[in-house]
């Protein structure tokens, strides 16, 4: 037969468990709502023009190729584990795990399976706006 002391002990345990579960749920929801939102980065139009004229160059956090009218921005984050890739003969190379990408950002060798992400660019006055 369970005593009053046992009952209160179980009550405390269950109450503590319920409070802990509720805390985890609140924390989880707060962390989910803290997801980073899309941010905009302004790229100087002259720098973008110079980059495309030279066949491609780093502008800010991006590598810009294409034409002056329709530039294409590639993210420099390796699609394997997010290291910043660097320019290499024929394209890009990841300094962390050895992934290699061609000049258009396509995967060539190493553990990365997908191409460098293309970042949309929109003209706004004297700048190009990248949505990161």
């Amino acid at each position, binding site marked *: 037969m369970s005593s009053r002391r046992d009952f209160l002990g179980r009550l405390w345990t269950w109450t503590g468990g319920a409070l802990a579960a509720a805390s985890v749920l609140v924390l989880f929801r707060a962390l989910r709502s803290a997801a980073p939102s899309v941010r905009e980065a302004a790229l100087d139009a002259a720098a973008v023009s110079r980059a495309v004229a030279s066949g491609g160059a780093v502008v800010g956090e991006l590598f810009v190729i294409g034409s002056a009218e329709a530039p294409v921005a590639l993210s420099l984050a390796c699609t394997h584990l997010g290291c910043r890739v660097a320019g290499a003969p024929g394209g890009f190379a990841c*300094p962390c795990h050895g992934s290699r990408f061609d000049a258009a950002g396509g995967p060539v060798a190493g553990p990365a399976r997908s191409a460098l992400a293309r970042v949309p660019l929109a003209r706004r006055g004297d700048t190009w706006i990248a949505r990161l």
Partner: protein
Amino acid sequence: MDAPAPGAGAPSGGFGRLSFGFLAVSVLSGTLLVPFYTPAAAWESLEKIQSGLAWGFFLRAVHAYASFGVLVATAAHAVQVLAARTERQLPAGVWWRSVLLLPVTVAALLGGFVLRGDAEAVAALAIWRRILESLPLAGAEIARLFLGSVPGDLGAVALHHAGTLTLLLWLFTAEHAGRFIPDARGAVLAALVSLALAGTVPLPLGAPPAAAPAHLLGPWSLLGLQGALGYLAPAAGWLLPLAFVLLLGLVRHAEGRVRRALLATLAASCAAYAFFTVRVLLSSRV
């Protein structure tokens, strides 16, 4: 002569006492560094500590070597315990929390590495985030909990490095050792080793965060994982350590052939890890 029964051997605490001593030196030196470190300006803080603060370079090296010492002594203690078959001297719960000391120490070391804010640290943070995000169900949320939600802000990493992980390390170590502070012999020996290393092998400052070197190396204790991730999916970054910790923890509950099989698997894992470590180091020299 009969083999000793599991748990019947003498306590194997030599390296354990040293590990607790290293932890005390690491916490003390880390506390002294805190006033000079700003998570939002990590690289600048390191530059100032290294060259603008009297004895800053020495204090930083003492902190780093003492922290390395925690991991080395803990790993040596684990080998010592398994060789002497004394793991059953601990209650099961204490054993599992003691096993957790290894990944918690590695996580604390990784946090310290990321807090350097240099080019290698920036890459390590990105990789750490991707690996955590590959956890099922709540990966993105767990990554935000440990690494923060604002890119470039190391506040969350600093909090867990100096707070959560250090507290866990101290609590688990104290519970394992049965005392809240290290004994004088372990602490003095750990202090002497850390001071000697800091005085003879100074720690250099890393490359600036914007630098783009051809090769980037992670923390020395994770080079094997860095090498393995060159062939495996990101989830291997948490699956492999988890498997190792589970196998190590299960040794206490196994006997005879099963125990030998677990130990052989652990030894093979360590050999593979050493192979990948050497491979990464050699490829970085090309």
